[in-house]
């Protein structure tokens, strides 16, 4: 093991080097660019043996990765924002074909207006694309996710592509000390990719075919079950990871002081740290605050969220996203989880960080204040409730 001072992007690239992808399709977009730059350097210096393909667009980046995966190779690509939207067609293609590609997405605002800074509207708009979606909080988790992602995605019961999301700039460009696992240990943890879902010269295959109404729904059911199977596989993978590398992760969610909390804030990504600090401060003032950090939006932690929130008096969902004309998508998902589990407590949605707008400690204190005293259903930080009341 070695320790380096790395940005989120660089840490993720280090994790990918350890995962030994055989084909990397690369197209630059801010704030993802550092990842493909570092990977090109690793290929150049021989520390990563991969076909590095300079594709001419994000659509081709993922289309190329799908082709490589269909050839039986481990494939990697990375994108952000407009790039993710440009390749959207291929997202559904990769998941429908059950190709366990890993893609890093630097979460970034979507145009218009143009903006390069971080919010999560890009990836959250693609929740239905059939990909596993993880959200990292810090650079270490980013590196570890890169390594774990292939093991989860390539599991035979899962066979689903994996999108690892890093908040643009706040995480992708922020430097932290990061532990880098040894190559031998990484190889022990992640064996080479084996699959039957590939081109085979001994027993030729027809792939990515059509399926009519008589079987199409069966393929879709199996795809759904594959993403659901990731629930257990993520737990198993994190257990094995902890045994080898010593770092423990907590599955689909990470709870902080939720057990006896009256007021719980549910969030995701890099903002969670500030939420926890705020909870600590409120606790010192006698307010029982807690935080749930969603680590995986797909498969969605229905049970885990209901379990964490069931004894609270009220909760809030803080997200860098808005589904226009409705509410934040994370809020919708959380509410569904609670409804199914018969948890009937007051909930409020807080939309913040759009276009990279800072979310301050006092913003989060205000959010907890709103949760405890009651506020509008959907609140834009710095503006107030929407006209839906």
């Amino acid at each position: 093991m070695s320790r380096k001072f790395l940005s989120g992007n660089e840490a993720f690239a280090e994790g990918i080097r350890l995962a030994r992808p055989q084909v990397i399709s690369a197209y630059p977009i801010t704030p993802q660019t550092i990842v493909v730059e570092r990977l090109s350097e690793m290929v150049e210096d021989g520390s990563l043996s991969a076909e590095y393909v300079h594709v001419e667009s994000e659509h081709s980046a993922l289309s190329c990765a799908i082709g490589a995966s269909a050839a039986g190779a481990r494939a990697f690509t990375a994108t952000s924002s407009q790039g993710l939207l440009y390749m959207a067609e291929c997202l559904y293609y990769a998941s429908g074909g059950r190709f366990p590609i890993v893609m890093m997405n630097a979460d970034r605002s979507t145009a218009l207006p143009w903006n390069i800074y971080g919010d999560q509207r890009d990836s959250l708009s693609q929740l239905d694309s059939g990909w596993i979606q993880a959200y990292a909080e810090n650079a270490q988790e980013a590196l570890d996710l890169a390594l774990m992602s292939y093991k989860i995605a390539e599991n035979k019961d899962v066979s689903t592509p994996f999108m690892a999301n890093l908040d643009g700039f706040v995480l992708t460009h922020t430097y932290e000390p990061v532990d880098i696992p040894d190559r031998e240990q990484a190889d022990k943890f992640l064996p080479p990719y084996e699959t039957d879902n590939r081109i085979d010269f001994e027993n030729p295959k027809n792939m990515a075919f059509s399926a009519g109404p008589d079987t199409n729904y069966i393929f879709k059911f199996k795809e759904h079950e594959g993403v659901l199977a990731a629930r257990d596989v993520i737990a198993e993978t994190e257990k094995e990871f902890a045994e080898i590398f010593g770092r423990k992760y907590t599955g689909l969610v990470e709870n902080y002081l939720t057990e006896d909390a009256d007021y719980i804030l549910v969030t995701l990504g890099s903002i969670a740290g500030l939420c926890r600090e705020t909870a600590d401060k409120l606790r010192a003032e006698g307010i029982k605050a807690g935080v749930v950090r969603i680590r995986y939006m797909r498969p969605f932690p229905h049970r885990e969220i209901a379990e964490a929130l069931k004894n609270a008096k009220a909760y809030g969902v803080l997200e860098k996203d808005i589904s226009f004309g409705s509410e934040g998508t994370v809020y919708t998902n959380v509410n569904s989880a609670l409804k199914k589990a018969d948890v009937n407590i007051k909930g409020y949605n807080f939309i913040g960080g759009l276009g990279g707008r800072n979310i301050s400690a006092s913003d989060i204190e205000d959010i907890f204040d709103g949760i405890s005293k009651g506020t509008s259903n959907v609140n834009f930080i710095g503006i107030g409730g929407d006209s839906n009341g």
Partner: protein
Amino acid sequence: MRPYVRDKKTFSQSEVPENTCFEAGYLVSVNSGWRSIRPVIDNAKCVGCQQCYLYCPDGVISINDKKAAIDYDFCKGCGICAKICRLNAIRMESER
């Protein structure tokens, strides 16, 4: 090996593949029903020049002992073979 018709034609839920990857050249139906006319080879005229074999869009013509032979399971009756044959060794006949 050319694709061929298999015995197993329908797939239950458990038999449907987990992914979109399946045995190549797996056929469950023929195309003979498309045809209103069929090509018939006149073996007395056919010299096995293979032009019909080369130009058949469906690949249903093979050459055996220097004579053209047609797989009527998959011939759609387009008639390109009859048009291409310079010896008029193929005529199109109405399907009864």
